[in-house]
């Protein structure tokens, strides 16, 4: 009985690859803030209007990746977990692009009521 209790107490986490220290987290957070500031600037600068969409997308992907890799530890954890998540992300992306194409680019119908 005591043996089982022991197992519950310690758990299997000891073997985990070490997570980064607090310093690394703060650096990531600062980077996220800077990226957000950049995003807002880009959205407001008329000069950047032509390249706004790609720049905003790149900045959003960067933020996305930073959080997923460092805060969610995908960078440190087993690749298996990244696969789970990226699989879903890929399907989500396919769905998004497909619906966009079907409704916007391939739509040859004028809406009747406008």
């Amino acid at each position: 009985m005591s043996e089982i209790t022991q197992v519950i107490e310690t758990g299997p986490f000891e073997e985990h690859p070490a997570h980064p220290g607090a310093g690394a987290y703060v650096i990531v957070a600062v980077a996220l803030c800077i990226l957000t500031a950049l995003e807002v600037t880009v959205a407001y600068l008329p000069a950047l209007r032509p390249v706004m969409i790609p720049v905003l997308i790149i900045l959003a992907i960067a933020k996305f990746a930073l959080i997923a890799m460092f805060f969610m530890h995908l960078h440190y954890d087993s690749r298996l977990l990244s696969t789970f998540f990226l699989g879903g992300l890929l399907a989500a992306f396919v769905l998004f692009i497909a619906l966009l194409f079907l409704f916007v680019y391939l739509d040859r119908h004028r809406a009747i009521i406008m």
Partner: protein
Amino acid sequence: MKRARSIFASAAIFVLAALLQGCGGGEQHPLNTITTKSDFARWITNLFVEITVLDLLVLAAVLITFILAIFFFSTRVGNPAPPSTTTSDLRVEIAYTLIPALIIIAILVPTVRTIFRSQPYLPPKGSLQIEVVAHQWWWDFSYMDSSHINTANELHIPTGVPIRLNLESNDVIHSFWVPQLGGKRDVVPGQANELTFTASVPGEYLGECAEFCGESHANMRFRVFVQTPEQFAAWEKAQEAPPGTIPASETAAAEGQKVFENSPCTTCHTISGVSKGYIGPNLTHFGSRTTMAGGIEQNDPHNVAEWITDPNQVKPGVYMPALGLRGTQLNDLVAYLESLK
């Protein structure tokens, strides 16, 4: 083993006979998709026949290997011959990957060609454009040529002229389908769909709604009359004119017009020169139609009277209310409607 073979032989003969049966019989099967009466329908049927032939070849290959495997190239438990230990054979596996792939390509090429051919972006030159508006559960047809005819449930078109149907829905999704004139196209609210074809053989073709559209989906039928250009011109001319004034001799019909004018009928139905309702079908030339109530019944006085007495009995869920007309009033109204040639 012998018994098995004779069973399979007779099954094969049965299937072949049945297949042949399916191809013929335009008379007995007025809604069939095989005896084509337009270019659009012919393209589809050609494709259908091609795929059917290839499908039957594949089915034959599967059945033959299946029968060989079970009855000729295997034993039963208890038989001393040990089972084969083969777990793969690269040549076989490549064969049954590649051959289906080739068949698929053979189907895909004409498929894609027909897709583009049957859906021209613009109406073909010289085409007759007709606006089709689907309602729960009837069809409204407006001719977009100089005649501006508006009629319901019976569509007249000429042979040899490209027809462009602009499909719109008044309520839910319906689907316009005249099997002998080609494939169906959904009628979607808020979306301008179209159907393009050229009818080649004069005749009367049945159509029906093919998308479930509520309680009386089954009762949303219609007819297409394909006519020679001369006949069509004559029909159009007759439809353009307002219905003639009712001769005094026909007292019943004249009385019926008064019944109509003083009843709630006028809020929903248009009769040119009499009323301007727009919720129900246009009745201007009701008497000239062969069918009524969404093409489910013959247009005769008995059926019309029955319909007016209790529409819901004929077409469950219908929006038209029972008006409580009885006796002479009812008979007069029926006589009036039937006089609208």
